[in-house]
């Protein structure tokens, strides 16, 4: 992969004794959409916040367009901020209720000196058009818009500086089904037209399948599997990925009735004191003695997929977590 827009190298973020993120490496290529999937407490949002330096990493490196920004001061970072942007889950809490939509979108444009005077308004109207809103919307306030429209405003603001990297943290999770469809379509269209790289953080497997070229799955602060989207869905290797895919109900009653759910034992362990060996072993239906003592490394298989599981063979043959008998 030449010329990545984002490179996270062995990123760690510890909050006191809590190891929220523990050695995560992700690369987002120019124009590539990488999905970061995980459940609550997996550390996926912390990775996103560290990637745009809203949070300070404890260790590892963050490179944006090849520049190491890990320890850069806020002042030095400021001119670079136009290269990357973050879109949050809840548009009503990330838009200032006292500003008009026009002011909200214009703010980063003015801050980075990308346009002046009348050109600012023209640029705002152009951006509103690109996210499917009308020029009149510029004079309204956030509370006058629906949830879907507000999320379009967040996207317009993020794109106002024409970033190379967009980090989107659950951008569609608070939206209704039909609104979610239109926001996902919008993100897909804009990404294709503008060619920005995107780190798409979500718990929604169907959304990530729709948007991402490649997917990284996180569990308890670490990446357990990484693969191109189609390969991950067709042939999940890690038992956790298999469980995750099997648990999400399919919106089709006939199919859903025939599906087998992999039920995980117990609960997510505390990141204060993650389990020894493989962090997933306490809940893995396939765990053997080795998993309890030896930490599996994130291995790269032929074809470039990555997985960290002792039970996946050298040739990539993976165990089946839905029939745990043959493993022991």
């Amino acid at each position, binding site marked *: 992969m030449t010329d990545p827009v984002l490179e996270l190298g062995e990123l760690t973020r510890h909050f006191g004794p809590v190891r929220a993120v523990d050695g995560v490496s992700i690369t987002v290529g120019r124009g590539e959409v990488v999905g970061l999937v995980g*459940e*609550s407490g997996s550390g996926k949002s912390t990775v996103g916040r560290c990637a745009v330096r809203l949070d300070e990493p404890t260790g590892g490196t963050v490179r944006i367009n090849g520049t190491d920004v890990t320890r850069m001061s806020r002042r030095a970072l400021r001119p670079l901020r136009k290269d990357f942007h973050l879109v949050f889950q809840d548009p009503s809490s990330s838009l200032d209720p006292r500003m008009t939509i026009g002011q909200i979108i214009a703010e980063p444009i003015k801050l980075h000196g990308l346009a002046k005077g009348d050109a600012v308004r023209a640029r705002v109207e152009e951006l509103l058009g690109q996210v499917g809103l009308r020029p009149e919307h510029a004079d309204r306030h956030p509370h006058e818009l*629906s*949830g879907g429209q507000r999320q379009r405003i967040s996207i317009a603001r993020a794109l106002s500086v024409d970033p190379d990297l967009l980090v989107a943290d659950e951008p569609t999770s608070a939206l*209704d*089904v*039909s*609104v*979610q*469809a*239109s926001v*996902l*379509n919008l993100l*897909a269209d804009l990404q*294709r037209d503008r060619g920005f790289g995107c780190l798409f953080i979500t*718990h*929604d*497997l*169907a*959304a990530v*399948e*729709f948007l991402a*070229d490649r997917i990284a799955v996180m569990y308890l602060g670490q990446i357990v599997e990484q693969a191109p*989207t*189609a390969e991950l*869905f*067709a042939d999940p290797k890690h038992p956790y990925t298999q*469980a*995750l*895919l099997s*648990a*999400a*109900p*399919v*919106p*089709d*009653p*006939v*199919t*859903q009735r025939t599906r087998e*759910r992999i*039920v*995980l034992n117990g*609960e*997510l362990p505390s990141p204060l004191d993650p389990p020894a060996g493989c962090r997933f072993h306490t809940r893995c239906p396939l765990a053997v003695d080795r998993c309890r003592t030896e930490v599996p490394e994130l291995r790269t298989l032929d074809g470039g997929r990555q997985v960290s599981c002792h039970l996946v063979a050298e040739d990539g043959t993976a165990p089946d977590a839905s029939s745990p008998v043959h493993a022991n």
Partner: protein
Amino acid sequence: MSPDPVREEPVLSVRDLSVSFRSGERTVHAVDHVSYDLKRGEVLAVVGESGCGKSVTSMAVMGLLPPTATITGSVRLGGRELAGAPDKELQKVRGNDIAMIFQEPMTSLNPVLTIGRQIGEVLRRHQGLNRKQAREKSVELLTLVGIPAPRQRIEEYPHQLSGGMRQRVMIAIAVACDPAVLIADEPTTALDVTVQAGILEVLQSLRERLGTAIVLITHDLGVVADSADRVLVMYAGRAVEQAPVDELFAAPRHPYTRGLLGAVLKPGAHAGGTKRRLPEIPGLVPSLTEQPDACTFAPRCTLADEQCTTRRPGFRAVELTAGADARHKAACWHANTMTKEVVR
């Protein structure tokens, strides 16, 4: 499941239920003539998007709406009329015959009382059990909802439990008095998918083991496909379609249901890099301050004609074609003429 679902008397029967709220000069019609029946051991999913009235309908059934709400219509539970019943009478019914669980279990549990105390409270109040009996029954209930080490758990406080475990406790409290009907309002929305799977299994086991009838309010069509026997689709305060689950997904007869099913993401549909656009429903949900004598979906509907904008369609059984079910109803002037296949 019920032996003869067609002939058996419903445990809950809602007829022409309407709810409106006065807000200054305006009146908001949150629920507009909704009717449904629920039989023993049946799971009815009520689906729709924010503001469609699915939660308000259930709050009205439970008698939990504030005095600012105007409620008309009938709610019969096991032959007893609940609509307009005095609050004192409703307090006896709630918890005993009908119970409800909500999306966020932490806000429904008292943080300073142990789990055992909170389950025991219901048992002692409604069933007159003594402290010791209540304790034994609490352990039994926690086992029923799949909580490991129940004897230890009843001594713990809500904050010591995970979100999934808290929701299981809420279910245990709700079914403590073996209610005929359980209303579950988005019970898994705040939970991770692997946790959600466990909660859905608990709900299934309740209906199988206790015969509890469940109203499952959700916006998630995956959850509907997983757990429901029958589905009621709501739009802008009105019931627009009702059908057995397989038939609703295979042959929806209302354009809104079709739009919803088209817009939902299906795993596997986009594999192989085919970035097909998702079908969208154009336009916005109408304001609920008016009750037009028209189809409220007409402004967003591709099939809308003059009739749709001038006359309100009744909620009627669809014409029986081969394989169609007599319990399939739709509120659409075109329900009997639209092509059978779904746009997917």
